[in-house]
Structure formats: C-alpha cells, structure tokens
C-alpha cells in the first residue's frame, strides 16, 4: 500500500511539472501582451512598453519560467500581473468557492445517481428503468448553460424561490450560502446524473449477474441484504472512478456556470487570466487545479483499491 502511494505521488509530481511547462508554452501563443491589456487601446506604445518592463514580461521566456518555478519552490504563487496583488490572495478564495460548489454538487448527485442506477438495474427493461435511463440521458444532453438559464428563469425570476447569484453576501451563514449554491448545483446535477447513474446501473447489472450474488441468494439472504453487502460495492467502484474524473471539470471547467451565476470560482479566474495574458495567475491557477485533480484521482484510486480486494493484494495495474 505504501509503495503504491509513493509510486503514484512520484508520477503525479512528474505530471505536474509537465503540466506547468505545457501551460507556460501555450500561454506564449496568446496574442497581445498584458501591458496593452492593462493600459487599454488608447495608451501610447511607450506607456505599454513601460508597463511591460515593470511587470518583467519583456524578459526571455525561460527566465520568466525559471523565476516562477523558483518562487513556487518557496511556496510563493507569485504576483498577479493584472491586479497586482499576490496570486494566493485571489486564488485562495476562488478555490474555496469552487470546492464548496463541487462539494454540494457531489453531495446531491452521487446518492441520487446511485439510487437511480440501482433502481433502474433492479427493474431492468421496465418503465422505471426506461424513464431513469432516457431521462438522465436527455438531461445530460442539454448543454449546461441551457439548463442553468432555464433554472435561473424559473426558480429565480418567475417564482422568486432561490437567489439567481451563487455568491452569498459576505458574512452569510452556512444555510444562506447553501441556498445561493442550490441553483448552480442543480444545473450540475442535471449534467452529471445521467452519466453516473448509467455507470452505476451497469455495475449493478454486472453484479446481479455474478456468481457471488447467486450464491448469496442461494444462501437464503434477502434482496436488500444482498444489495447492501455485495451489489452496492460493485456499483460504487466504477462510480468512484467516474466521480474522480469529473473533479477536474467540476473544479476548473465550470467557466460557463460561474459566468451565468456570477460566482467567483477558480474557473473564472483562469479564464480571465488566459484572456488577459496574466501569466502568473494562469500558471499558478492551472497548477492548483492540476494538484486538486491529481489528489482526487489518487484518492479515488486508493479508495478503489481498498474496495476491490483483487487490486489490494496484487501489484498489477
């Protein structure tokens, strides 16, 4: 177990380094420069050059990368070129916001999808199954911005049931914050439910067919116990894998949802940084998301191997 974790951590570190290089290289392809973005189209070229010099972006790429890595090694995420405050001041709260939204969305969608998947599998081929499968599929097929807009209009504006902005006023209590996050969470549930329920359903069907299930029934155990003890674990395994892969999307890929609900999440930060060529923010932001993603994948893999005895005791990958 320990060796497994160590190996994974080592690989993750290599991935992160590669990630940082890729992002740095990509960012060079962006047109324009941060100086022009900050000073506006009507500033003189001399002013823009001065701004660029002050921000240190007229140095060679390798030098800039080196400086950034050096700072990172000391735990310093750098200085945002656009806002001229430390990146951590802005990334910290943004990441926190994204994590809150992701947590609420997961909390809602995972139990719902597993329930749905199990129900559909148990009544395979019948009305319940069809409804859940096709319904889930249709919801997933609708682009998340359409679902989000429909939710905003119905719940926020027509019926005034829920707030249309996801950011609660500062100092708001736990329940107020949750209330504000409900609408975007619903939009995310709509997107993910069909996919996760489908995977859970497939896992349950496979488990129901398996030898050990038949053995359990033959042993005289009732349906509920069989499900609880054997089938559920099988449904959970692929679900965990799927949920982990969605983490990257849920943390850094929610640009559209964050835009529509005016939620200052990390997706927005990175998007704006990419548009404005704010290198430091972009680099550090992507790296942070990468770390979260890799932690989630690692946690999922660990959980997976814990639940799946075949992997726990073998070295096979």
């Amino acid at each position, binding site marked *: 177990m320990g060796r497994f974790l160590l190996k994974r951590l080592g690989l993750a570190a290599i991935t992160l380094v590669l990630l940082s290089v890729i992002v740095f290289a990509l960012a060079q392809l962006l047109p324009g420069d941060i100086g022009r973005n900050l000073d506006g189209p*009507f500033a003189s070229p001399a002013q823009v050059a001065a701004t660029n010099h002050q921000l240190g972006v007229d140095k060679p790429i390798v030098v800039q990368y080196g400086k950034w890595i050096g700072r990172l090694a000391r735990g310093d995420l750098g200085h945002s070129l656009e806002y001229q405050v430390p990146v951590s001041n802005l990334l910290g709260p943004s990441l926190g916001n994204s994590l809150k939204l992701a947590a609420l969305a997961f909390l809602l969608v995972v139990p719902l999808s597993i329930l749905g998947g199990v129900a559909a599998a148990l009544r395979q081929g019948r009305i319940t199954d069809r409804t859940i499968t096709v319904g889930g599929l249709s919801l997933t097929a609708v682009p998340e911005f359409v679902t989000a807009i429909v939710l905003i209009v119905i719940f*926020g504006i027509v019926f005034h049931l829920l707030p249309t902005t996801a950011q609660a006023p500062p100092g708001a209590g736990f329940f107020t914050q949750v209330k504000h996050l409900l609408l975007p969470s619903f939009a995310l549930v709509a997107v993910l439910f069909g996919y996760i329920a489908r995977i859970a359903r497939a896992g349950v069907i496979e488990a129901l067919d398996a030898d050990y299930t038949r053995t359990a029934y033959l042993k005289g155990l009732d349906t509920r116990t069989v499900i609880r003890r054997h089938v559920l674990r099988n449904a959970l395994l692929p679900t965990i894998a799927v949920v982990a892969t969605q983490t990257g999307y849920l943390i850094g890929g929610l640009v559209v949802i964050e835009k529509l609900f*005016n939620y200052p999440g990390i997706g927005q930060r990175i998007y704006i940084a990419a548009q*404005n060529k704010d290198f430091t923010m972009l680099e550090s932001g992507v790296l942070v998301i990468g770390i979260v993603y890799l932690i989630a994948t690692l946690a999922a893999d660990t959980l997976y191997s814990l639940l799946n005895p075949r992997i726990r005791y073998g070295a096979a990958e």
Partner: protein
Amino acid sequence: MDQETRRRLEEYRRNQAGPVENALLDDLLTGEVDRREFFRRATIFGLSTSAIAAALAALGDAPLAFAAPAAVRAGGRLRVAIIPPPAKSLDPHTYQDQGGLETGGIAGEFLTRATPSLTLLPELAVSWKPNADASVWTFKLRPNVKFQTGQTMTADDVVATYLRLLGADSAALSAFKGVLSASGVKKIDDLTVQFTLDTPTASFPYLTSSTTYQAIILPANYKNGTFEKTPQTTGAFKLVSYTPGVGAKYDRYTGWWGGSAPLDGVDVTYYTDDAAVTAALLGGQIDLIGQIQFATGRPLFGNSSVQIFAARGATHRQVPMRVDLHNQLHDYRVRQAIAMTLDRPAIVKTLFNGRADIGNDSPFAPVYPSTNKTVPQRKKDLRTAKQLMAAAGHRKGFAITLTTEQTGEIPQLAQIIQRSVKAININMKLNILTATAYFAGSQSGGPGGLGTTPWLNTPMNITDWGHRAVPNVLLNSALETGGVWNAAHYANKRYDSLVKAYEGAIALKDQLKYSKQIETILLHDTPVIFPYFYNYLAAGSTKVKGYKADALGQVYLSKTSLG
C-alpha cells in the same frame, strides 16, 4: 426687466465680464444662441448664477430658481452592480475602462461636474474664468473641503493631481495632448489654480470635469497603489474595502463638504456577464446596475419593477474603411456607396428601440451644439449606391472582410452591415474577435505606420468609442493626417486645417461655420461611417430615488436614496 436687474447686468458687463463672456451675452441678446444653449455655455465659461439670472431676465424670463431637492429618506445601503470589473490597481490617473471609472467615481470628486445635459456644475471648484482668448483659465477652489484623511484641500493638492494626470503613465494624456502641459499648471494662492494652455481651447473646463474620469482630486502626498488601501478622496463615500474581480464596499463619509449623503453606504459587486446582472436585478439581488446595453438588457425594458435611467450622449461606433490600401475601398465612391446601403432609422429601431441618434458619418453627434444641422442627413439610397459602384467599375461587386470585437451590439451591427451591402453585390465575411485580440498588437511602425493591431489596420472594421463632451479628440486622433487612432489612414490637408480652425473658434457662430465644412468634406470622402450615437443607459429597482444617468457612466450617488 426691473431697474435693479438691468443695473446689475450692466455693471457685470462693464467690470467683470471679459470678451468671451460678453460675446456670449451678445449672442444671447441677438438670438444667435437659444436660452438653453446660452445656459450651457454660461456654465462652461463660469458665469456666476446672478449674471446668468440677470441675462435671462433681460430676455423677459423669470429669474432662475434652483429648486432644493425634495425631502428624501436617509439610510440603507445601496447594492450596485458594476460591469466589467476594473483591471489593475485603482490609481485614478490610470483609469481606462468602465469598471475603474465607476469604482473610483463613487468616492472621488472633480473640479467640475458634467450634467446629463452637458452643462457644468461647480464641485471642488466654485468658479472659473477664461482670459480674453481662452488660453488661460483661472479656477477658484471651494474652501474647507476635507479629504477623508483629514487634510484640508488646497491648491497644492489640485496642482499635484494635474501634474500626475500629465505624467508619462497617465491614461488621460490623450485628452490633454496639445491642450495642456505640466508647465502650464500653477498655484496662484491656496484656493486658486491657473491653467495656461498650449492652445486656446474654449471647451477646456470639460477637461477638469467628471467627463475626464481620471481627474479625481487627490491629496498632494498621494502614493500610487494606495487608493484601495486608505480612503483619501473628498466625496460623499469612502472606499473601505476592495477585492479585485469580486466587489467593493463604501461607507458614508461624515466629513463631506456637501453635508450628509442619504445612503449609509454602497456595496458594489463586479459582474462579467450581462445576463447574470440582468437576472440579479430582476431577482432582487441588486438595486442598481451601473451600465446596461439595450441589446443584452432587453428584458429590463417594459418591466414594472425596473426603472431605466437614460442620458443622451455621444457613445458611438466607428466603421473605418482604409483609404490607403490598393483595394476597392480606395475609391471614395465605393465608400459612399457602402454608407448608402444602410437604413439608419431601422438600425436604430432594431438595435436600440429608438434610444439613439442617427449619425451622419462625422464625429459631430446631434447632441453637440456645434454640430451643423443644415448639412443634409445621409439616407439609404440603393439606386445612387449602385450608380456609384458602377462608376467606380465595381458593378459586379467584390469580397471583403469586416473585422471587429465581441462587444455589446457590435456583432449585430456587423451582421446588419453584411446583409445591407449584399444589395450592391459586396460579399462581406465577418471576423469577430474577442476584445483582447482585437486591440492586441503594436500601434506604431510597420508599413501603414500604425503597427499591427487589428483595430487600426484591417481594411474595414468596427470599433467602440466612448462618450466625449466635445468632438475635439475624435476630429484629431481619429481623422487627422497621422492621427494616432486614424484607423482609416485618412489624410486630407484641407480637413486638417479646418479642424484647427474649428478648435480655435470660440463663438458658436464660427464653430458652426467650420463644422459645416468639416461635415461636408467627410460626407464626400466617407473615410469612416458613424451609424449612430446612442444613449447611455442604466437600470435600477423602483426603490432607487435621486439617481440620474451620466452620459459617460459616472455613478454619482451623493443624492441617491432608497425609497
């Protein structure tokens, strides 16, 4: 007119009024300017209230009564949405976008304030006078104004502010170029500042007003980068907290010279998306939106829980067509033909539901008094357009690409233009870039002299231009030979000399004479299409009282209350 008023007026004209003021009074008495225009110019030239009243009484009007504001309810915090968020730090002399100017403008004040009708009111200056040819302006400052740091405002602070505005890193340089340099700013005494201009400019006071949004008066010892850390302006609200990209908080400043603002404070949230901000207002999350666009804020109009604030202004779009390339646009007849395919009243109806003025392909917006309205308005005329194309040898048409930015209603305007020119067989392709990409690149050097940036170099494009109180900057930078923002690469010596003459003209009559010639030349050459000048729009809930939209977008909340 009674004896006393006549006596006062004569005394004023003899002893106090200079040639400029007297010329204006003559214009009023002979009917050259109407009452409204007289009032506007009188405020620019700094005529005192009693002089204005006396002059108008001389015409038989009732003396002006400046009504006191109706009794308002005090208290409450106003929730304002500002879109987009300010970039970079909040030093006023670096403001170059809506987010910055609105954020600073809630807390900051200027020497003078521009009203929605383009008149000027005293703010931190109580009076201002030009010399004989408007080349030297003397401003008297308001006494006993306290900065939020506790210091009292004196001429030293004003001089320091303007020196900063004229420094190399100031975003306001383009406005002051050729008009004022650092050597011309002088303190006369603790409450008097004198500006000696490089060129006589009758409209100089606008440069000290809220229209020049970088000109917020700050203490002489102001340090860059501290605006958001310590409240140090003179306005009715002090900025107490600021998170980039997220929001800002202001509290009432009890030491304000103007008394006490009705609101306890202001809570600003920054938005990046028009739909989100519309939903927030309709859902009751916010009370006021600093700026809305008709194209994206349509659901707010006609909604009984929303009030729309409008200010007629000169915000517009320019559609330059490069005159210097070896393509079909080189021929002025082709450019005229393109301009003639546009049904401007229909465009204004479709894009703004009528809340805009039609443009006549020159920077002279209908809202400017110096716009000569006797010049015929260009109309849609396909027959003449086709004849022009045939005369230029392009009856079969040609292909061209229109490049532009993803801002407001511009993509829709682009699609309308594309559709309109089909009638003269022009096959137009659209290339709509993000604003960042559109303004990226260098602005000088290269084959055309204007670098590589798309907005100054593509054969045909659409650029957004903000409101200006007078058209001077547009006449210069956008159309003069060698102008830094001359996207059409237009070069016409006669035009250049007419613009010089226009800017030096003080009397309205002379300005109109020159503007007529300028407008006529531009109609003939059509280097740029100016399709419209649209109203500045803001929206708020019906609870908001005492708020007026400003043509530039300043969010002025000192007189605003909730209910």
